[in-house]
C-alpha cells in the first residue's frame, strides 16, 4: 500500500506526459492540415483569377484538402480532448458534411444572387447588387407563381381532411386492414415524374383518357383538364394530393392508434354519438400530431415542382406555375443564373418567415387548447 503510491504517482506523471505529447501532435497535425487547405485554396484562387500560371485544372483538389482537413480536425479532437473528442467524433462527420454541402452553397448562392449573370450571354458575371431583388418586384410572373403557391398551400387543408377520413376508416374495426393499408400507401411510392405521365398525360388525356371519357359520360362535354386556369390548377393539385395523401394518412393513423382507448369509451358512456365523440374527443387529442404533419406537409408542398414541370410547364398562361417550376424555366430557357438565384433566395427568405410564424402560432394554439 505504501509502496504502490509512488508507482501510481509515477504512472500518473508518465500518463500526463504522454497526453501532453498527444495533444501537441494533434495541434501540429491540425495546423499542417489547415495550412495545406489554405495554400491549396489560395493557389487555386490565384490560378483561377489568372494571377499565377501554375494551378490545378479544376477545383477538385480543394474538395480533397477539405476532406483531409476534416479528418485531421477529428483526429485533433481525439488527441486533445480524449474521451470528449471520441464523443465529438459521432457528430463531426454530419456537421462537416452539412457545412460543406448546404451552408457553403447557400452563402455562395447569395453571392450569385447579387450578380447579373446570364450563361448564354458572352460577357461573364457582373456585380449587380440588389438589382435582381429589385427586378423581381416588377416580375408579374413571379408574383403570379407566389399567388399560386398560396392556393397550393391552402389546399393542404383539403388533403388533410381526406387523409383524416382515410385514417379513421383504417382505424375502424375492419377486415383486410393490411391490404387496404398497403394499397393506400402505394401512390406515395411512385415518382412524381411517372405520375405526371400516368395521370396527367394519359388518364386525363383530352381525347381518349379514361377520366375524360368518364367526365363525358357524366355530362361534362368538354373535359379539358388543363385548358382553363382554375381547372388546371385543381388538376395539378389533385395529382399532388394523390401522391401525398398517404403520407399524411399514415402519420394520422399512427396518432389514432396511439390514442388511449379509455377516453373514447368514456365519451360513449356519456352518450356521445359518433360525430360528437370525434369532434370533442378525437380531434382535440389529435391536434398536436395534426399540426406536426401539416407543417411537414406544407414544407414539402412549398417545394412542389416536378409535376408542374412535366405536365403543364406552368401553363395555361402561368396558372399552374409554382415558384420552383418558374425558376426552373428561368434557368432552363433563359440561362439567367443570377436572376434565378435571386428569385430562389427571396423565396427562401419568405419560407423562413412563413414557417417561423406558423410554428410560433401553432405552438401558442396547442398550448391554449390543451
Amino acid at each position, binding site marked *: 500500500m505504501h509502496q504502490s503510491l509512488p508507482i501510481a504517482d509515477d504512472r500518473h506523471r508518465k500518463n500526463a506526459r504522454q497526453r501532453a505529447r498527444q495533444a501537441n501532435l494533434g495541434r501540429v497535425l491540425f495546423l499542417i492540415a489547415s495550412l495545406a487547405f489554405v495554400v491549396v485554396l489560395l493557389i487555386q484562387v490565384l490560378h483561377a483569377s489568372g494571377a499565377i500560371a501554375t494551378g490545378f*485544372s*479544376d*477545383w477538385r483538389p480543394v474538395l480533397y484538402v477539405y476532406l483531409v482537413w476534416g479528418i485531421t480536425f477529428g483526429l485533433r479532437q481525439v488527441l486533445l480532448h480524449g474521451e470528449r473528442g*471520441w*464523443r465529438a467524433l*459521432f457528430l463531426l*462527420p*454530419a*456537421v462537416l*458534411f*452539412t457545412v460543406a454541402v*448546404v451552408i457553403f*452553397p*447557400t452563402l455562395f*448562392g447569395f453571392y*450569385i444572387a447579387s450578380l447579373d449573370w446570364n450563361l448564354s450571354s458572352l460577357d461573364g458575371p457582373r456585380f449587380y447588387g440588389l438589382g435582381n431583388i429589385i427586378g423581381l418586384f416588377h416580375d408579374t410572373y413571379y408574383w403570379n407563381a407566389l399567388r399560386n403557391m398560396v392556393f397550393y398551400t391552402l389546399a393542404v387543408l383539403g388533403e388533410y381532411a381526406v387523409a383524416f*377520413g382515410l385514417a379513421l*376508416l383504417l382505424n375502424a374495426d*375492419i377486415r383486410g386492414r393490411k391490404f*387496404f*393499408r*398497403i*394499397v*393506400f*400507401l*402505394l*401512390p406515395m*411510392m*411512385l*415518382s*412524381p*415524374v411517372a405520375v*405526371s405521365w*400516368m395521370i396527367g*398525360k*394519359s*388518364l386525363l388525356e383530352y*381525347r*381518349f383518357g*379514361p377520366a375524360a*371519357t368518364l367526365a363525358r359520360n357524366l355530362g361534362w362535354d368538354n373535359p379539358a383538364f388543363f385548358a382553363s386556369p382554375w381547372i388546371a390548377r385543381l388538376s395539378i393539385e389533385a395529382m399532388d394530393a*394523390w401522391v401525398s395523401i398517404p*403520407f399524411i394518412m*399514415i*402519420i394520422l393513423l*399512427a*396518432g389514432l392508434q396511439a390514442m388511449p382507448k379509455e377516453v373514447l369509451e368514456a365519451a360513449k358512456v356519456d352518450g356521445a354519438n359518433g360525430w360528437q365523440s370525434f369532434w370533442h374527443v378525437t380531434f382535440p387529442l389529435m391536434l398536436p400530431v395534426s399540426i*406536426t404533419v401539416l407543417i411537414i406537409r406544407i414544407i414539402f408542398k*412549398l417545394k412542389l*415542382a*416536378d409535376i408542374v*414541370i412535366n405536365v403543364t410547364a406552368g401553363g395555361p398562361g402561368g396558372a399552374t406555375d409554382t*415558384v*420552383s417550376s418558374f425558376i*426552373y424555366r428561368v434557368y432552363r430557357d433563359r440561362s439567367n*443564373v443570377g436572376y*434565378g*438565384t435571386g428569385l430562389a433566395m427571396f*423565396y427562401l427568405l419568405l*419560407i423562413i418567415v412563413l414557417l417561423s410564424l406558423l410554428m410560433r402560432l401553432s405552438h401558442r394554439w396547442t398550448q391554449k387548447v390543451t
Partner: protein
Amino acid sequence: MTILTASAATPAKRHHAALRAKRIVGRVLIYGALIVWAFICLFPIYWTVTTSFKSAVDVTQGHLIPWLDFQPDWKGWRSLGLSPDTILGTSNPREEFMSRFGNSIVTSVGASLLALVLGSLAAYGLSRFRYKFAWMRNDDILFFFMSQLILPPVVLALPFLVLYKALALLDTRFGLILLYTLTVLPIVIWIMRDQFNAIPVELDEAAFVDGLSVWGAFIRIILPLAVPGMVAAFILSLVLCWNEYFFAALLTSTDAKTLPVMVASQTGSQGINWWSMAALSTAAIAPLVVAGIFLERYIVSGLTAGAGK
C-alpha cells in the same frame, strides 16, 4: 301483466333491429369508402401497366380489360427491347434504359448508405451525449439538421450547378450522391434518433462497465439493436432518392442521367408513343411498388418515427 311485458318487448326488439340496420348501413358505408379509395389508388397503376400491352387502336378506343376488351401484346416492351422476343438481341433503347436504371440504383443506394452512416452516428451522439458548440446545444444542433428540410431544391440547384462545374462533378453519379445524401440526411437523423432513444441507456452503461469504449459500445451493442430503424431509414431514403427529379434534371446531361429524367424527356416529344411510355413508366415504378408491398411495415415505421410522442 302479460300484456305489459309483450308491449315492452316489441319496442326493445324494434330498437334492436334499428340498431342492427344502422350497423349494417355503417359497415356498407365504411367498406364502400374503402373500396372507392382503393380503386382511386390502384386504377392509375393498372391503367399504366395494361397500356404497355396495348396497340394504338386499343389506346384510342379506351379499352380497359385485357383478353376481354383487347388482345394484349408485347408492343410497349418490344420498343424498350425488353419483350421476350427482343430480350436476347441488341437494342439501343434497352441499353439506354439499363444505363439509366443503373444510375438510379447507384445514386439512390449510394446516397442512402452515406446518409445512413452519417445520420446514425450523429443521431447516436445527439441521443446519448450533451454537446455544446458555441451557443448551440443538442436541441439547437438537431434543429440545425432538421432545418435543412425547408431548403427548396431551387435554392441549392443553381449554386450547385456553378460549383459542380468548377469541381468537375457535373453529370457524375458522385455529385448526385452528395446532393441526395443532403436531402435525406435530416430524415435519417430524425428516424435514428427516435430509434436510439428507444434503446435504454443502461445497455451503454453495462457495456462501459465491461470495459468497452464509447465506440466499442456503439458498434458492438447498440448498433445491432438499431437495425429495424436503420432498415426503415434506408428504405425511406431509397424511395426519396429514386424519385428525385429536380436536381437530376439540372445537373445531369448524358452520363449520369437517372430514370425519372429519362421518363420526363420522353414526354416532351410530340406524338407520344403510348405503349412505350407506359412500359417505361411501369419499369420506373415497378421496383418501388414491389418495395411498397413487401416492406410496407418498415416504411410506415420510418414515417411514424416520433409521431406518437
